[in-house]
């Protein structure tokens, strides 16, 4: 009950007009960027990062959490109405949602996704309330070697488990770690990878990296693919559901929540896998199998609940351990560092008002989102009629302003351009963005923990092995990296001619659960490509 008391305290902290205003701005902006394909919460949070350094941390986090949750709501609107997912997390929603819209049931599809998102978001946020303090209690006893191992596991999770191609994931992670290494080494004071450029001695600011990769990279990518036939606007009235829709939706909502939350909390996270799993589960369990493929409401209700629950799950490792499991969380972590806070298990004891206020704001934001999305879905869809050159001109303007504002040096603008070109090249060659951003933000932290462990044992490599927690992590890493090789070998031994090259699962259905292709390009939907 301690948790509930703290939560009520959190409500007391955030229920001020100004904080509520930030929550409202957050969810509104979040829904808007969610609706627009290619522009996601990660890019938005990166663009707003320099602005929020001037805010109170609690207000900044309320704003970011609102954007994060709002993106999950908005993405489904585009999926349903345009067959182009607004976000990577709503790729699966498009499969049945757009069929429903074409069959004249757009209102019901929008309603089930908004209400399902609300229910999943609320249950998921309750999950944070009860789970996060437990994780903190456990994590507070962990030492540097264990942390190092957990971070390595996170790296493995975001590169090897997600995505279609391990090689591309590892390449992106290597790029991220390299960018993270630039600057003066904190232990020896040597310059690393600075190339003698004095401006690089302080390292490359996370804002410049995030804005360059997400905003400028995406802007260049869209500019290169600007011409595209417009979609038709499917007319929708006010979203509503009939009795049978409720009856068919409530179970998928709960199942989706149960699938989404743990996946969000794990470093193999992201909303892509649980939404796909939820879709498959609903397809198997449905009493109306004939409707799947022609617009079954279960196929919208389940995945939409799953993606919101996973958004809630993501906040557990972020707040309890300081570990980001998706791109938005990674940038929120950078924001915490920017305010001079140390993310990790001590955050809850050092800044209880911030953590509990943030969680309370999630409940408030979630309710606001339901009110914003249910009656206003047709208005949000109008955003899709904004000519894209206007949008991206605005984004590039904000990106340049933000990158310049960090240190007020023109050099950062050149850096921004270089990183933007890198982001463009990554999209061009199908490299996932998530490992890069996690590498940039988590890399220096992991390095510090690793060196601390080595210093404790005077450079003995055994210092890295630590206790049982670290052993489990290393075992999981070995399994995650080694299993595809082993299974590939086994398949080859069985003489299965299709099984060759098992370490690179670039299969035809691989792109469905490939978050990077969706995250970067937005419009690469199954059946809704450029």
């Amino acid at each position, binding site marked *: 009950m301690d948790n509930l008391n703290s939560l009520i305290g959190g409500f007391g902290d955030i229920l001020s007009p100004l904080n509520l205003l930030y929550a409202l701005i957050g969810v509104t902006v979040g829904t808007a960027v969610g609706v627009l394909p290619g522009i996601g919460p990660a890019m938005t949070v990166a663009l707003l990062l320099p602005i929020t350094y001037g805010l109170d941390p609690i207000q900044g986090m309320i704003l970011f959490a609102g954007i994060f949750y709002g993106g999950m709501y908005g993405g489904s609107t585009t999926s349903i109405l345009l067959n182009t997912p607004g976000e990577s997390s709503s790729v699966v929603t498009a499969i049945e949602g757009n069929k429903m819209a074409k069959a004249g049931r757009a209102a019901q599809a929008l309603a089930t996704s908004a209400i399902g998102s609300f229910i999943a978001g609320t249950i998921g946020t309750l999950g944070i309330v009860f789970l996060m303090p437990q994780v903190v209690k456990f994590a507070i006893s962990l030492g540097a070697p264990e942390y190092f191992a957990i971070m390595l596991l996170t790296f493995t999770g975001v590169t090897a488990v997600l995505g279609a191609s391990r090689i591309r994931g590892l390449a992106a992670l290597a790029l991220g770690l390299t960018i993270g290494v630039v600057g003066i080494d904190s232990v020896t004071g040597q310059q690393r990878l600075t190339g003698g450029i004095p401006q690089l001695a302080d390292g490359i600011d996370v804002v410049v990296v995030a804005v360059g990769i997400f905003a400028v990279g995406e802007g260049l990518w869209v500019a290169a693919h600007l*011409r595209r036939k417009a979609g038709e606007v499917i007319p929708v009235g006010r979203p509503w559901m009939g009795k049978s829709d409720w009856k068919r939706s409530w179970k998928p909502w709960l199942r989706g929540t149960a699938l989404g939350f743990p996946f969000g909390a794990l470093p193999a996270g992201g909303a892509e896998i649980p939404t796909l799993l939820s879709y498959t589960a609903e397809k198997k369990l449905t009493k109306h199998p004939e409707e799947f493929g022609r617009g079954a409401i279960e196929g919208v209700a389940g995945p939409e609940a799953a993606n919101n629950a996973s958004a809630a799950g993501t906040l557990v490792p972020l707040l309890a351990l300081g570990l980001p499991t998706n791109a938005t969380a990674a940038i929120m972590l950078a924001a915490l560092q920017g305010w001079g806070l140390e993310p990790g298990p001590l955050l809850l004891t050092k800044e209880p008002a911030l953590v509990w206020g943030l969680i309370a704001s999630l409940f408030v934001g979630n309710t606001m989102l339901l009110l914003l999305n249910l009656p206003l879905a047709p208005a949000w869809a109008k955003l899709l009629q904004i000519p894209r050159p206007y949008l991206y001109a605005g984004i590039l303007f904000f990106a340049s302003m933000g990158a310049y504002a960090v240190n007020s040096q023109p050099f950062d603008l050149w850096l921004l351009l270089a990183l933007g070109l890198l982001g463009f090249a990554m999209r061009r060659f199908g490299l996932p963005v998530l490992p890069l951003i996690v590498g940039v933000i988590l890399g220096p932290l992991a390095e510090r923990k690793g060196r601390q462990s080595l210093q404790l044992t005077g450079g003995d490599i055994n210092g890295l092995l630590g206790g049982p927690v670290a052993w489990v992590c290393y075992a999981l890493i070995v399994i995650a990296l080694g299993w595809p090789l082993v299974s590939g070998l086994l398949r080859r031994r069985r003489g299965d001619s299709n099984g060759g090259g098992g370490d690179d699962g670039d299969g035809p259905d691989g792109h469905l659960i490939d978050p990077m292709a969706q995250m970067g390009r937005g419009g690469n939907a199954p059946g809704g490509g450029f």
Partner: protein
Amino acid sequence: MTVLVGYVPNGHGEAALTAAVDEARRRHESLLVVNMSRDDVLADARRADEEQLARLRRDLDELGLDAEVRRIEEGNDPAEAILGLAAEVQASVLVIGLRHRTPVGKLIMGSVAQRILLDSRCPVLAVKGDAS
């Protein structure tokens, strides 16, 4: 010589089309119906879907008109596209639907109809319709 009409799937478009059919009959000329959607937006409310275009073709056939329905999907300037087409087919008259715009709305968004009226080389028949 032909009558060219810019069609949008709403009341203004229907009004323009009705007027264009009358005009084509009066002049004993063929009718060219064109629907333009911009390619720099993700969704365009002025885009007519395939079903609507097929229905138009059928209706015009039933009326016994020498009519063609065309779709333009490239470019981001409907006025330019329609004027270009008018020059290409040497339209004798161009029929468009007008809608009410506030001065501020016109200032921000510009007006396709106004540009067509100002820049067209052939006569323009502008029809007011009901938006619903």
